[in-house]
């Protein structure tokens, strides 16, 4: 093969190079550093480059680990489900019910507004909505649904509400994009063949939007796993793995933080593989 042929054969991969370089420096190399550190010994504040499994063993055998992992993965999974329950009908309406592209643009733009606002200001906003003197309590008291202000902030419920607001967009967009790719002919054909509406929805719309749903789950799951500031402040003091990692890293306990990060990474990857397998995302993508 001469140079011209090699270039012709492989030039299509050139477009991948910038992305691969960024991934190499931002993901691969830091991980390659992180994993060996997780096997280092430690004596505060010294890092001793001698191999040990202690950081893993101690963490996995600790009584608290079960609770922390359950808090972390339980809350993230629950948030994914809530985001799906809210995001799916929203994406469906956006894709099939709203005909005007202008209105669609307005709605999607509005969804992005919270991301333009600083974290601290959003904090204040949550207090005025969920706080004891907030809008929700005002509504509950004035409508007689409650006689005393409800404690909504500082609980897992508050955390899920805040995450729902923050991450629903990550669920809506992939589902919306997947739905937009569904040929209307499929739906018309099914309707023409007198398929009942629920079957049309399930067999065509839901199944063909599965790649979007799985992608949405991945986005929300990964984002909530990594968020440690929101649980710290609003979840009523519960501990999550992200918070533990931040706490160990912030106190110079890098081998322990690296071991926990590696555990988190392994569990997250396993969850993603299961999600992709269950969702049949590969099959669906290639079939199209």
């Amino acid at each position, binding site marked *: 093969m001469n140079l011209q042929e090699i270039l012709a054969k492989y030039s299509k991969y050139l477009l991948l190079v910038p992305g691969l370089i960024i991934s190499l420096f931002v993901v691969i190399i830091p991980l390659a550093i992180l994993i060996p550190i997780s096997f280092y010994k430690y004596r*505060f504040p010294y890092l001793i480059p001698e191999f040990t499994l202690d950081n893993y063993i101690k963490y996995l055998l600790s009584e*608290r680990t079960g609770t922390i992992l359950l808090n972390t993965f339980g809350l993230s999974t629950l948030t994914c489900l809530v985001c799906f329950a809210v995001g799916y009908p929203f994406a469906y309406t956006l894709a099939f019910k709203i005909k005007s592209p202008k209105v669609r643009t307005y709605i999607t733009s509005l969804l992005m507004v919270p991301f333009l606002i600083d974290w601290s200001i959003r904090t204040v906003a949550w207090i005025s909505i969920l706080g004891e003197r907030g809008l929700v309590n005002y509504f509950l008291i004035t409508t007689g649904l409650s006689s005393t202000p409800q404690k909504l902030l*500082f609980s897992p419920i508050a955390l899920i509400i805040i995450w729902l607001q923050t991450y629903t967009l990550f669920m809506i967009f992939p589902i919306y994009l997947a739905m937009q790719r569904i040929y209307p002919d499929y739906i018309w054909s099914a309707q023409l063949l007198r398929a009942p509406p629920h079957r049309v929805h399930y067999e065509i719309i839901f199944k063909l939007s599965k790649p979007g749903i799985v992608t949405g789950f991945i986005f929300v799951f990964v984002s909530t796993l990594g968020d440690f500031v929101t649980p*710290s402040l609003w979840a009523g003091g519960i*501990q999550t793995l992200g918070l533990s990692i931040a*706490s160990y890293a*912030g*106190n110079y306990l890098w081998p322990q933080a690296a071991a926990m990060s590696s555990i988190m990474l392994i569990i997250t990857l396993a969850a993603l593989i299961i999600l992709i397998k269950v969702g049949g995302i590969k099959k669906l993508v290639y079939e199209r």
Partner: protein
Amino acid sequence: MEESEEGEKYEKEPLIKDKKGLTRRQYLAIAGGAIAAAAAGVAAYYLTQPAPKPKKTIRYLGHPFWLPEDGIAEFERTRPNVKVEATYVDFYLVGERQLADPSSWDIGGSGRSRPLVTHKLLKEIPREMAPRWQEGRAIDYFLHADKYFPYEMAKRFDELLWADKERTKLLGVPNMCGWESQNYLPEYLPYEEKGDQVSMSFEELWNPDWKGHVALIDEGFDNFSRFANYLDYHQQMTFSGPISNLTPEEVKAVAEFMRPIFESGQIKSFWSKYGDIVAMMSSKEIWLSVSWVPVSLDCRKAGVPAYHATIVEGPCFWYNLSMLSKQGNPDVYNEAVDLAHFHLELTIQKLYAKQLYTSCAPYWDDLKEAMGKEFFDWFHDGKATYKPIDEIMKEIWPDKPEFWNLPERLQNGLFLPEIYFKHFWTGEPPRTGEPHPRGNKRDLGSIAFKHQITRWFLSPDLPDYNDVYVSKWEELKASIPV
């Protein structure tokens, strides 16, 4: 009219056309020429000027509390050949950044410097290069820690400050210091601050009346030390060494004491960002929190009465310092020392005083003069203001007549030193007079009183078994019911 050689008559084309006649090309030529001439003029001007001295750049890594942007602007204005490139990181994360890459900063601020000291990453600063750092001018703790703390604690204190036993070199120039316990809202907790008097016990943190309205700092070291101080003071536990440096067994014992408090759901939030705790207290969601002094001031600014408590068990003393990295740029050593020392000068003190933080070397005439007797005595000696609090309310809150008739307990919780003593920042002449019997006294009172009730120091230390602290803290938080 002209006539051609053939004898035909025609109108001669003018050499310069009227405005319609000037072509685009001609316009471009004229404009281009003008721009080129202007550029040549500017270039000639600059080429004939003497070349400016290249600026030296100091890389600062810290928190804006220590070196605010206003301070940098003033430093650069007074040292025209120096530029400060500041990177600000959250208080509880900055130490990790400094340790991770000591070559990325020349000067840094710290409230947790022990790991840097242990790793020998700090460049020493000869005492004479910090001329404001003098006996009698600095807070007495710094030169005579052994007078105030038990031997082992004083030893740890000195290890963090002095580079040699002879005390000729500093490991950093202390910038701000203070005494700290907990902030509370007097609308909910029936206490008030009266200067040199204790008001409440530390155990209010687990009083079930405030259940669900209490917040702590999200750091094991801070919390275990405070609880150890409580247990030590009430003789419920004895400790083998300093209460801020517990053994693993002692940490476990303190954690066992704390466990029921956590399991009961008493503590509802843990903060690490300053703005978050201000938002939570000023919105009255949190009524009592272990937090920094300026939190109470920011609540007051939002019109919410707030105090910093003088607890029976005594507050902790803390100080932060400006340090130089051994791996920083050696060419800017003198400039970096100058910047470290600048933290003790009047300009920065004016910025610290807004947060009610004390200068580590406050006993200088320029500070006394700028503050005026009333403010200086109120700030350092716990003396009352010259005006009674009801009159002060009208001055501070002219648009809030509802504050004018509040009980004094709440009015004092709305006192804003930054407005009442504004002359310190505006340069107006200070007020004259005598302390009024109903005047405001600062929370935690005088330095002499604080010396009397303080039993321990927190910053810039970290305990030897910090890993045990972190692990136990995580365990305690995992015991909070979901």
